[in-house]
């Protein structure tokens, strides 16, 4: 792995890079102005809706969870319906440590949550990623079900069905309490972790490694034929994705101050999948848009029509699946391209 890349200033591009495509590839990782929008919106939300910070925190955690799935599903093409396994592993790591009074410092707890989830991701990935398609889908589902049942049966430690209530999380930096009534610490803390993880994921998907993941997604057999160690790449990607899902789970446990079996539920795994498909997978910001769309929809539809709000969600999903290949963001890209073409 050679890391002695020569940094290129935008002005010093060599002759062959005159080509538009080459220039686009050289500049692909440059930060665009609109990429600051989600973060400005998140900051604005903090000041504009102090009463909704609990909802906002849940939203940020969902975004992080969806991002972790995007890395595995959207970039590497790993079809999984069991991503809550890692979310739950992270949540229970934080929960068990705090409930039994072993470790309550939030940031290091998150790190441990990431490590625990990564370990499960690595161990299961080494086995699962030999398979593809439906087999893989079923096996990821099974892994999650096994973990959930294990958490259910070990009720002496995990509280079983009742979960671990009223976790005692130490104040952040020894100073900022996680107050359940005024969750502004939780919100800012979650936002900071999300920004950190996002920066990492963004760097990863624009790296040569990220490019080879998209190669695996687009044509697995060809990647073998050009000599790529496909399975190793997939396992590495899956492990990283699991670690990030574990961080999301850990945040969930810390900010809610409880853990229960719903962390490992199929419902959670399916929801994050729906969010990613709704928003658009394999494009980073799909996770943001999908999570906002889903939670906003849930919020408002549930108010208008509490018994059958999922009907509205179902309809939206049908529309997205039928008419847009890549979710809301994909639809936006198509419209933008048409607009550009028309403007020419």
């Amino acid at each position, binding site marked *: *792995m*050679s*890391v002695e*890349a*020569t*940094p*290129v200033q935008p002005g010093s*591009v*060599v002759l*062959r*890079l005159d*080509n*538009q*495509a*080459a220039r*686009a*590839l*050289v*500049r*692909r*990782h*440059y930060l665009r102005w609109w990429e600051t929008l989600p973060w400005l919106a998140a900051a604005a939300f903090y000041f504009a809706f102090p009463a909704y910070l609990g909802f906002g925190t849940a939203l940020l955690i969902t975004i992080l969870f969806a991002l972790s799935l995007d890395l595995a599903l959207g970039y590497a093409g790993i079809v999984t319906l069991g991503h809550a396994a890692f979310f739950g592993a992270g949540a229970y790591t934080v929960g068990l440590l705090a409930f039994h009074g072993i470790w309550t410092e939030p940031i290091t707890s998150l790190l441990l949550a990431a490590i625990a989830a990564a370990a499960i991701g690595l161990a299961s990935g080494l086995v699962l990623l030999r398979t593809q398609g439906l087999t893989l889908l079923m096996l990821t589902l099974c892994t999650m079900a096994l973990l959930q049942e294990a958490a259910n049966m070990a009720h002496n430690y995990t509280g079983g069905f009742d979960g671990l209530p009223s976790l005692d999380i130490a104040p952040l930096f020894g100073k900022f309490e996680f107050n359940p009534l005024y969750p502004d610490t939780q919100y800012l803390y979650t936002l900071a972790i999300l920004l950190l993880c996002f920066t990492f994921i963004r*760097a*990863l998907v*624009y*790296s*040569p*490694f*990220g*490019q*080879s993941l*998209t*190669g695996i*997604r*687009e*044509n697995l*057999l*060809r*990647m*073998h*034929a*050009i*000599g*790529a*160690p496909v399975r190793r*790449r997939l396992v590495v990607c899956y492990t990283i994705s699991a670690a990030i899902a574990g961080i999301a789970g850990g945040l969930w446990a810390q900010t809610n101050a409880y853990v229960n079996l719903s962390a490992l539920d199929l419902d959670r795994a399916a929801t994050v999948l729906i969010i990613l498909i709704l928003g658009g997978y394999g494009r980073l910001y799909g996770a943001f848009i999908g999570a906002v769309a889903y939670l906003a929809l849930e919020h408002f539809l549930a108010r208008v029509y509490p018994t059958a709000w999922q009907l509205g969600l179902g309809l939206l999903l049908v529309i997205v699946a039928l008419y847009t290949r890549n979710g809301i963001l994909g639809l936006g890209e198509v419209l933008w391209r048409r607009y550009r073409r028309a403007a020419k």
Partner: protein
Amino acid sequence: MSEIRLETRALARQFGALVAVQAIDFKLAAGARHAVIGPNGAGKTTFINLLTGALPPSLGCVFLNGKDITHKSQAERVKLGVARTFQINRLFRGLSVLENVCISIAERVGVAPAMFYPIGRRTDVIDEAMDLLQVLKLAGDAANRVSELPYGRQRLVELAIAIGLKPQVLLLDEPAAGVASAESHIILGAIERLPQDMAVLIIEHDMDVVFRFAKRVTVMVGGALFAEGSPREIEANPQVRAVYLGQTGHG
């Protein structure tokens, strides 16, 4: 004769009771332009799969530059210098032409596992990819998504990905398959411009392609080598005409 790049000894592969390839002794020298022809089901593609390591042989050995590579994996053989193209396109369809080639070059130069700097920093890789596209007259399509290209140009990308690996031995599985004959000259032109010392093996049905490209021709029938010789000798061989050339109407 120049040095032998690829060699097989008594190479065979069975699928259950079906003998797809049997006892093939074959040599490919540096700079070779060698065609393998034969009727459908003669085992040509299986033979390529055995050479690349996509399939393990039932019997026999494969040597590259005199070293036994029979038990090397597909990926290891690529690193040692054996690359191939596919009869049916295997491209990164959702990505641009440039990215398709970059993925292959990044893999060859060992950049691909790098996680912490963007691919855009590796202008050496992108430069080389652009050069290659220029040679194949694909530079104009560099920004286009592969799935949006006409089929003939997609076949060129198929070729470009393999050439990006800078192989010593290049195995082409019907490179002009599915391309209208009016367009096949583009592909043939590209093949003719391959580096002189590269050993090239081509499987082809189209006799015009074979006779234009190949200096040696091997005929496979029923999984075994049936005849070998210069294109003229093969064309004149009455047995070959009987089993193959006569049937296809290319003659």
